[in-house]
């Protein structure tokens, strides 16, 4: 009877809390479409560049055609000086340029190793990388062709020449995300963080909201309405975490199932493995959220704190910037947030196809955080309950005497 009552009270307070529901259901749903929106096109293509052709020979025109044929680059204008091209970059019309110097063809025939000049706007890294990749790729094709034709001219068999233009070839294979798409890069990691942040806010809002109301109306303490003061702390936390865990398991299914499928993200883990990693992740987040809720004086601060931690947590997670390059002090603090091991663990398990048994450290880390935050939440809640009760019992005694 006791438990049943607590469950129904808790369910009622969760499903009547509009901001909480907006954050949990609205947030998770809206973000699942909003966040990937900028990256829908996966990779930047057809970056505009200028061509400065000072040579105007057959080979220079051929280079221009080959550059234009790469998916990365579109030659949108012709310029005659570097200054003009730079001015065009500043105006935002183009993002880079290719310069073929005077006497390029002549120098090539004279075996003087002429220079091509590539330039890209490095104020935007991805644009820069795309342009340079396209230019280098087409230039190396031209180099290979020149080498092969020279070998043929000096009497080699063309089939042999075509395979021998380089002494040792390098075959680069992108693994786990073969298309180098941005959706595959951002979505699996950021969606874990969205679950993490919305759940922190939800648990924080609920907990803080209850104790915020209490402060304002001290006299109504013994009413059944204020169940969070009348049940033992461990029971409240247990019920709260079970309900929130179930809500978030559903939402996780939506993300790992529908969303990943919708965006065509490859998934490697099976359901049981995923569940065994999701449970300690969600539990540790719920307990941390309750702790935040107990420490703040007003409920809206939960949203604020969680919002402000989002970007630092993304950059500490290790999927954007290598962990080995992050200062140790920041790394250690980041380990206290469940998102850091969780993002790492989910990417390894679901995207990179790591063996589940290999995730022993990650799971131990998450269970450790669960245990630690769980105990901390129970003790903080007990203290807070007592603090809330004290003035009222006093006034009772006073009224009795």
């Amino acid at each position, binding site marked *: 009877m006791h438990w049943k009552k607590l469950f129904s009270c808790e369910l009622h307070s969760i499903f009547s809390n509009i*901001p909480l529901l*907006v*954050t949990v259901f*609205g947030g998770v749903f809206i*973000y699942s479409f*909003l966040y990937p*929106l*900028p990256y*829908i*096109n996966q990779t*930047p293509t057809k970056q505009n560049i200028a061509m400065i052709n000072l040579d105007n020979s057959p080979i220079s025109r051929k280079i221009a055609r080959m550059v234009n044929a790469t998916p990365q680059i579109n030659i949108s204008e012709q310029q005659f000086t570097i200054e003009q091209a730079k001015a065009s970059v*500043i105006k935002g019309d183009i993002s880079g340029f290719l310069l073929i110097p005077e006497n390029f063809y002549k120098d*090539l025939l004279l075996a003087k190793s*002429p*220079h*091509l000049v*590539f*330039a*890209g706007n490095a*104020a935007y890294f991805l644009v820069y990388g795309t342009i340079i990749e396209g230019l280098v790729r087409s*230039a190396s094709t031209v*180099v290979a062709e*020149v080498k092969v034709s020279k070998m043929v001219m000096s009497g080699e068999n063309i089939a042999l020449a075509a395979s*021998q233009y*380089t*002494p*040792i*070839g*390098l*075959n*680069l*294979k*992108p*693994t*786990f*995300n073969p298309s*180098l798409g*941005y959706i*595959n*890069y951002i979505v699996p990691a950021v969606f874990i963080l969205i679950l993490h942040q919305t759940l922190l806010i939800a648990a924080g*809002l609920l907990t803080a909201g209850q104790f915020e109301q209490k402060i304002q109306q001290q006299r109504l303490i013994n009413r059944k309405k204020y169940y969070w003061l009348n049940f033992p702390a461990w029971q409240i936390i247990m019920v709260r975490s079970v309900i929130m865990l179930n809500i978030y398991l559903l939402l996780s299914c939506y993300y790992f199932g529908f969303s990943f499928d919708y965006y065509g993200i490859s998934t490697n883990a099976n359901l049981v493995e995923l569940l065994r990693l999701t449970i300690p992740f969600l539990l540790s987040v719920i307990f941390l959220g309750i702790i935040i809720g107990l420490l703040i004086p007003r409920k*809206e*601060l939960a*949203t*604020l704190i969680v*919002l*402000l931690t989002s*970007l*630092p947590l993304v*950059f500490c997670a290790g*999927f954007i*910037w*290598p962990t*080995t*390059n992050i200062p140790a*002090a920041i790394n250690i603090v980041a380990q206290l947030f469940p998102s850091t091991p969780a993002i790492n663990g989910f*990417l*390894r398990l679901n995207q*990179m196809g790591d*063996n589940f048994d290999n995730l022993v450290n990650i799971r131990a880390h998450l269970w450790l955080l669960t245990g630690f935050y769980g105990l901390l939440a129970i003790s903080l809640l007990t203290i807070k309950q007592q603090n809330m009760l004290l003035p009222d019992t006093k006034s009772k005694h006073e009224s009795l005497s």
Partner: protein
Amino acid sequence: MTLHQHIKQEWREITQSQWLKALLFWIPALLVIIIWGVFSKGIASNLAIGVIDHDNSVISRGLVRAYDATPSLEVAHHYHSIKTASLALKEGSIYGYVIIPEGLARDTLLGKSPQVTAFYNSQFILIGKLVSSALLAAHNTYVAQLDTLKDLVDSHGQLSQAIAQAVPISYQINPLFNANSHYGQFLVVAVIPAMWQILIIATLVIVTAAPMQNNQGNQWLINLTMTNLVKRLSLYLLIFWLQGITYLSVFYGALHWPMHGSWLLLILAQLLLVIACAGVATLLFFVTLDVTRAMSLVAGLTAPAFAFMGVTFPSTDMPVIAQWWRSLLPISHYITIQVQQVNYATPLTDSISAFIALSAFISCFYLSKVILHRRQTRSKPPTFNLSQTSVAQDTKRPE
């Protein structure tokens, strides 16, 4: 109350509230230090890779040394089987591995052009790209050396001719505007404004709503005028503007990061940004009239803002809806101005559209005023009913 009185009163509020003090002073400082700390190395170095050397010859060892010698890479492990190497890649302990086939030296000498295969982790795109381009550069340099050596024999010791034969066309790559390819300079100055926008809008929502927390919330709303609210917020706007100026002077002044443009324009853009954020904050508050709900909207609007800013992923490659959403965020217009000023020193005439877009957010104040007015007229009758002073006050209503 005059502006002066408002500022005095709000200053008292700030000094009395631990939370406000934290939000206005030490939290922004802490966030900046963390983000700067994460990227303090600037250029990622010593990324761990593995090697499976089936050849173990002078040439293969030379190749491995060439990979190890690039500052970006570090050959951290030697594996004997592909299985162990691929496990290490999957668990993230290395970012890539290179397989050197058996007979590499022999095939090279015979001119059979052997293939070295490298797998790299492209799930982490940025790191993956660093690894692949570092591998490619190291490999090409080493191979060109081999080629030159071979050609040197053919050309009877003519070095320049041998080089030209090995490298018939060379190219020179010029990064414009960020000459040292400093990743920190690129990301830190974009992440900080994104966090700044969250901080400004969220804090101003809380400050705007503060009088609501008292018991006379309704009374406060009825007596509220936009002019008074703006006066009350002015001290906070000033503090946020100073935060922005401090951020600029720390990075482009004290740390000497290259800054080519006009400080005046940049600082003006910051003022416009702070005002724009205040406009958005008041609008979000008056739409909901509930601080927690307003904060949910703030979260929805500002949390993904970084993705839409167009710094990491070019805005021109975003779909139209994303570009449209992007233009609703004040920070996107500010970051355009910041990138233009810092990197290209764009004259005002060329970045005027971003300035106009930022100024357009001032209309949020007008919208808030309209909404406030509507709420006031709607909430008046019930309060009169509650106060039970029907006739006497009802006649006064037209005033």
